[in-house]
């Protein structure tokens, strides 16, 4: 085992001698430089392996004496991990900077080595004054590295860094002096035992000052303006080390002095941390400069780690215990890898504005890395931050710290806003220039991303409940495979995915019971059917299949979920996958962002609810226990339901849907509209079957939900009739249809749930059919506006039939299966007696006729436009699923009992009374009866008979040309003159205009604007003037002290 002192010896030695070796040529110095860095890595790695294997923590004594008479270093497990991380960072950053190091003076390498060595010292030392020394070494080296460019921005940034560093050093020294005075030692562990902050005001003050010194180095809000200027100005390779490495060192220093702190100080620290997190992310919202944006994110993340760590210690969790390591460590290591990677990318792209990062699209693997880093920072699976955040919420909920949870989740959401906005810009950018990435620059980034992924997998195994995550192994393996195989042509990948999904479904479905089986059919079998149109795409379709499989992984995970961790992981996987699918649409960028933010917001509300559930049932993750909760069940209910309602797009939470579904690609729209929305319904069923009487005071929450459902039906359908874009019309129609689902569920009766499920099944069938048909049409005519189409029945007859069947089912006209839902609606209204919601719903259903007709008329009937005279029918891969779905609708219409009686059977377990009595194929309730088969036969019979009558009586029919119509002495010459397509329902708008004011859109836009404006306002404190920053720091210390004293 190599003595850790060699880290310092090698670094110092090389530092001194490099100038000498440089005389022999730059190559020689570079070799030595990297050799030393590699050696430092090797030493830390060796210790880590040994310590994991069970070795004792090593104490390295110097000068022959034991502490407290001499300085000692410690190499324990935490030190090994941190030094390894820092040293690897140093090696990779050094490699990254190879071009610069080759060109400028050799002093740069010396300073770099000093910087890394200094951080190692910060981590390993156990002496307070020694800590100060290493702090100074790191500071000076960093300052020099910042200023190495020698331009105005870097020099001024470096100078501000020194000002702040200087204050921190002063405070540190004062604190140390007094603590030495009070305790008589400088050895940290002994000092901790000797100091009691409660003993006197002065002791408290001393500890406080010491704490503040370290905190200032960790860039708290608002005393962090200097840091932002540094992040913005300095060379990205250096900034990577500062953002990741220096923070690692300072955080470890904080970790070391934590035993000195009392409860008040810990709580203050927690408050500072979370405030910094919130404020930084708020201010980052308006930022357009890439590096400054990353600076805000960095500061925020460090604040988060600091705050979470302090809160956990305050709550009594052992400082080096598993929980602290998992949560704070998980968050930190994700930040470490992701920030370093992002700054490295910034250096490669060398563009100031976030708008200009589009060149990343030229290098897929680095685009992948970029996306991965963004996901990691927000805290999405499979990264360690996801599991860390999960565990944090669970632990803090158990301790009752809900304000803290809310603040963290809000901050995360804000961070997601600007990070995903950036990601969207990159994914959709128009790229003209090439991007050159050298090996030296590329390798560190790849190491960072794969380390993050690997650590994520590891964290998944250690988080409580993590063993259950093995349900995701096989599907995620397929995701990885699809990433690797992304170079293959699209049809090959499509076949692989369909085969794999088919096999998985074959194995999975028989093991699912009751409603999970039914949703399994919709999610998995439906998913396979909807993958068939993928064969119509030529080329490789890079980036589609991994995320499509990820989305289906999430859906499958939902089906298999037995505990809340599985549920939440599946939920987030589904969200990520669908986001990347939606953003593929040409104009989808803002809508995909909106979709993601609503999804994340809903997910975080859900997470809070799951945390509360965890707390209430004594720390158990099992979903089945949801029905045993007695206290706070209503609050849990509301939180979970709101989370699921965002996915279900209920009124008020629906504004993301029209854009996202309309602008998505032709085969993505059916997937997200017909299948994904049902995930929200699935969640609602899980919650509502467990908690059956949620009340707030005397108010039944389900009554409120029934009104939400009713209004959603009405307003969703009303909005649909005014749309000019065919896919937007269908999207609003989805909003309306899912209102029925919510209404039915909220009734909490057997028939009510049966109605919901019927609507859901029908919606899946007809919405997939309609989106596929319209998708095929749009594929050929290249426009989505209905007024630009017309007369397409002549060219695309199969699509016409699909749409015809689709709208008959949507409208609920017998004999097709949509009627089942309508008939059941009347039954449940009579049964429950909620007539007013019923009226709203029925009116909404009537309004649906309007857009049904408009869709089919404007697209297929009327006169064919000149440019469409030669369009072909939709591609065959689009037609095959349409035929399958039409057959399914016919089957469901003729034999509804075969499916619904099974649904009734499992509903009887939840609601024993009041189901449908199926006699043969006839449905009987206490109010009425319905025989689907007979009605279908009757309609068919009459139709055939009338058609025969017409044909018998017909003479030779003469087909006339298009413009052969009587037109009151005018002669129409162009099809545009005869196509009534635009503003078709103007009179309806005139009559009911007031009901169409976009209140929800205005509301959410108002909130978004409010946040942005606040962020923009607070940004102004960062004036760029170093003296101002000085004042900030001093004021910060004073104000915090006032709070501490006040406690």
């Amino acid at each position, binding site marked *: 085992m190599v003595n850790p002192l060699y880290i310092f010896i090698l670094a110092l030695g090389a530092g001194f001698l490099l100038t000498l070796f440089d005389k022999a040529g730059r190559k020689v110095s570079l070799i030595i430089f990297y050799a030393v860095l590699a050696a430092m890595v090797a030493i830390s790695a060796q210790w880590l392996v040994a310590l994991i294997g069970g070795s004792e923590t090593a104490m390295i004594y110097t000068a022959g004496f034991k502490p407290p008479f001499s300085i000692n270093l410690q190499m324990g497990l935490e030190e090994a991990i941190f030094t390894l991380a820092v040293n690897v960072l140093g090696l990779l950053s050094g490699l990254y900077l190879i071009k610069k190091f080759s060109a400028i003076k050799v002093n740069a390498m010396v300073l770099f080595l000093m910087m890394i060595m200094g951080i190692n010292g910060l981590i390993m030392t156990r002496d307070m004054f020694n800590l100060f020394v290493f702090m100074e070494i790191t500071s000076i080296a960093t300052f020099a590295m910042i200023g190495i460019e020698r331009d105005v921005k870097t020099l001024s940034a470096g100078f501000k860094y020194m000002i702040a560093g200087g204050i921190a050093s002063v405070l540190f020294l004062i604190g140390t002096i007094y603590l030495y005075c009070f305790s008589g030692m400088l050895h940290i562990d002994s000092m901790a035992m000797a100091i009691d902050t409660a003993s006197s005001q002065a002791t408290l003050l001393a500890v406080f000052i010491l704490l503040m010194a370290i905190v200032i180095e960790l860039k708290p809000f608002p005393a962090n303006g200097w840091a932002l200027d540094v992040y913005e100005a300095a060379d990205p390779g250096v900034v990577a080390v500062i953002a990741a490495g220096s923070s690692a060192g300072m955080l470890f220093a904080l970790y070391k002095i934590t035993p000195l702190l009392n409860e008040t100080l810990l709580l203050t620290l927690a408050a500072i941390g979370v405030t910094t997190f919130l404020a930084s992310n708020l201010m980052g919202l308006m930022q357009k400069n890439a590096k400054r944006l990353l600076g805000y994110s960095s500061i925020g993340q460090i604040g988060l780690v600091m705050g979470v760590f302090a809160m956990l210690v305050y709550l009594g969790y052992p400082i080096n215990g598993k929980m602290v390591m998992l949560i704070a460590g998980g968050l930190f290591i994700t930040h470490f890898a992701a920030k370093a990677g992002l700054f490295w990318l910034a250096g490669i792209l060398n563009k100031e504005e976030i708008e200009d990062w589009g060149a990343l699209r030229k290098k897929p693997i680095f685009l992948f890395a970029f996306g991965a880093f963004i996901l990691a920072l927000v805290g999405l699976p499979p990264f360690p931050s996801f599991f860390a955040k999960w565990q944090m919420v669970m632990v803090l909920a158990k301790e009752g710290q809900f304000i803290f949870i809310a603040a963290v989740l809000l901050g995360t959401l804000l961070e997601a806003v600007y990070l995903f906005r950036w990601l969207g810009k990159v994914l959709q950018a128009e790229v003209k220039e090439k991007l050159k990435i050298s090996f030296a620059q590329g390798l560190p980034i790849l190491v960072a991303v794969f380390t993050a992924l690997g650590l994520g997998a590891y964290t998944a195994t250690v988080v409580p409940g993590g063993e259950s995550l093995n349900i995701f192994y096989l599907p995620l393996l397929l995701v990885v495979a699809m990433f690797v195989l992304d170079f293959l042509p699209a049809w090959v990948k499509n076949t692989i995915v369909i085969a794999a999904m088919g096999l998985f479904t074959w194995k999975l479905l028989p093991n699912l019971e009751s409603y999970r089986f039914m949703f399994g059919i919709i999610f998995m079998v439906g998913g396979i059917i909807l993958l068939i149109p993928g064969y119509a795409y030529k080329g490789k379709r890079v980036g589609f299949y991994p995320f499509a499989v990820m989305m289906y992984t999430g859906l499958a995970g939902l089906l298999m979920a037995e505990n809340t961790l599985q549920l939440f992981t599946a939920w987030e996987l589904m969200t990520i996958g669908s986001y990347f699918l939606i953003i593929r649409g040409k104009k989808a960028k803002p809508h995909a962002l909106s979709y993601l933010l609503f999804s994340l917001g809903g997910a975080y509300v859900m997470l809070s609810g799951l945390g509360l559930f965890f707390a209430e049932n004594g720390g158990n993750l099992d979903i089945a226990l949801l029905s045993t909760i007695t206290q706070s069940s209503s609050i849990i209910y509301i939180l979970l339901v709101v989370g699921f309602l965002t996915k279900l797009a209920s009124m008020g939470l629906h504004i993301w849907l029209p854009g996202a579904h309309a602008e998505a690609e032709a085969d993505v729209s059916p997937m997200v509209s017909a299948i994904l929305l049902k995930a929200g319904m699935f969640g609602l069923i899980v919650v509502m079957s467990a908690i059956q009487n949620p009340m707030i005071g005397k108010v039944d929450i389900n009554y409120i939900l029934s009104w939400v459902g009713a209004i959603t039906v009405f307003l969703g359908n009303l909005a649909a009739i005014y749309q000019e874009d065919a896919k937007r019309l269908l999207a609003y129609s989805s909003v309306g249809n899912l209102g029925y689902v919510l209404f039915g569920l909220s009734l909490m009766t057997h028939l009510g749930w049966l109605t919901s499920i019927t609507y859901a099944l029908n919606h899946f069938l007809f919405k997939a059919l309609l989106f596929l048909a319209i998708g095929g049409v749009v594929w050929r005519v290249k426009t989505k506006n209905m007024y630009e189409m017309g007369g397409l029945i002549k060219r695309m007859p199969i699509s016409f039939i699909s749409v015809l069947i689709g709208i008959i089912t949507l409208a609920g006209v017998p004999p097709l299966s949509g009627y089942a839902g309508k008939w059941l609606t*009347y039954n449940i209204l009579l049964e429950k007696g909620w007539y007013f919601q019923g009226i709203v719903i029925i009116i909404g259903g009537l309004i649906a006729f309007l857009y049904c007709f408009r869709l089919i008329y404007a697209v297929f009937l009327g006169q064919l436009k000149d440019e469409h005279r030669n369009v072909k029918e939709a591609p065959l891969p689009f037609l095959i699923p349409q035929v399958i779905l039409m057959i399914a609708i016919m089957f469901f219409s003729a034999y509804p009992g075969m499916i619904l009686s099974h649904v009734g059977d499992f509903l009887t377990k939840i609601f024993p009374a009041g189901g449908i009595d199926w*006699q*043969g194929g006839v449905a009987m309730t206490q109010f*009425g009866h319905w025989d689907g088969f*007979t009605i279908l036969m009757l309609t068919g019979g009459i139709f055939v008979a009338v058609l025969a009558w017409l044909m018998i009586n017909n003479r030779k*029919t003469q*087909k006339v040309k298009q413009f052969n119509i009587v037109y009151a002495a005018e002669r129409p010459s162009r099809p545009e003159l005869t196509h009534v397509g635009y503003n078709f329902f103007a*009179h*309806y708008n005139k009559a009911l205009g007031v009901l169409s004011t976009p209140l929800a859109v205005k509301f959410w836009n108002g909130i978004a604007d409010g946040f942005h404006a606040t962020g923009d306002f607070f940004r102004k404190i960062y004036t760029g003037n170093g003296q101002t920053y000085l004042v900030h720091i001093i004021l910060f210390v004073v104000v915090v002290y006032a709070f501490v004293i006040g406690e």
Partner: protein
Amino acid sequence: MEFQWIKIPYALLSIFIIFNIGMLINGVVRKIGARVGGRYGIRVYQPYIDLIKNYALRSNVSHGIMFYLGPVFRLTGGVGVYLLVPAIYGSVMFSNFSFAGDMIVALYFIFFGTLGMALGAGEGGHPYSALGIGRGLAQVTAAEIPMVMAFLGVAVQYQSLNITTIVAAQQGGIMNWTMMTNPLITILGLIAFLGTMMRSPFDIVLAPQEIPIGPPTEFHSTFLGVLQTNRAIFPMAKTVLFMNLFFGGATNWWILILKVFLIYMVSVIVGVVFPRFRADHSIRWFYKYALPLGILALIVTSIIF
């Protein structure tokens, strides 16, 4: 339940009877209208002559497959609605196919015909047809509001959706009719009836004096013949439905003829007196007056029954 094949000839007989009733009532109403207007009027059997003339025309013109199918859908809708409603209470022969569905299926089947007609007219390629359909659908959906509320109110009153049950409950004298036991709902139903009959003030759809083009002009010969056949059956079907729900049903054909004629005359009388609403007028009218009345009627019904 085994399907009884004897039902089919009974259904055909029933259709034949109601067809003739419809034709004759059409003729009589036009005669009355003429006499009221000081003219002599047509022969009462004129509709028959018109129909035979249309079927006998030697040539006809089509604009496409959906144009061809439009009248077929329409007549299917009309005949279908009629067959789903029991015509004569207590008669096995003339209860049609009402065992297959209750009042809701009749309510929604009405849209089958409307949809088909809309598709057919749209295929004609004529912009005025499309305008008419746009107005017509908008108005229909507004006019359906009192209709569904009235039907729902009746269902609440009798706690059943089954038409035969509702008619049975109204037997035993005029005081048992829904008209007497629940006048508010009946008024609502009559308003709905006016809306669905598409006479003034709700005849903006065809607006005979204003738009002499569109479906009546584009459809001719056998197509128009099929539509005229429907014009005889469909209004009768709807009137029979209303008769069953609000006016006690009929136990034999003579009572049926009498009641259908009288109910139909209500819409005729209103039609000759009132001018026409514009499309947005009529939509607003239904939302502003019919909807609150409907809510009131439902509240009263749910309290009393």
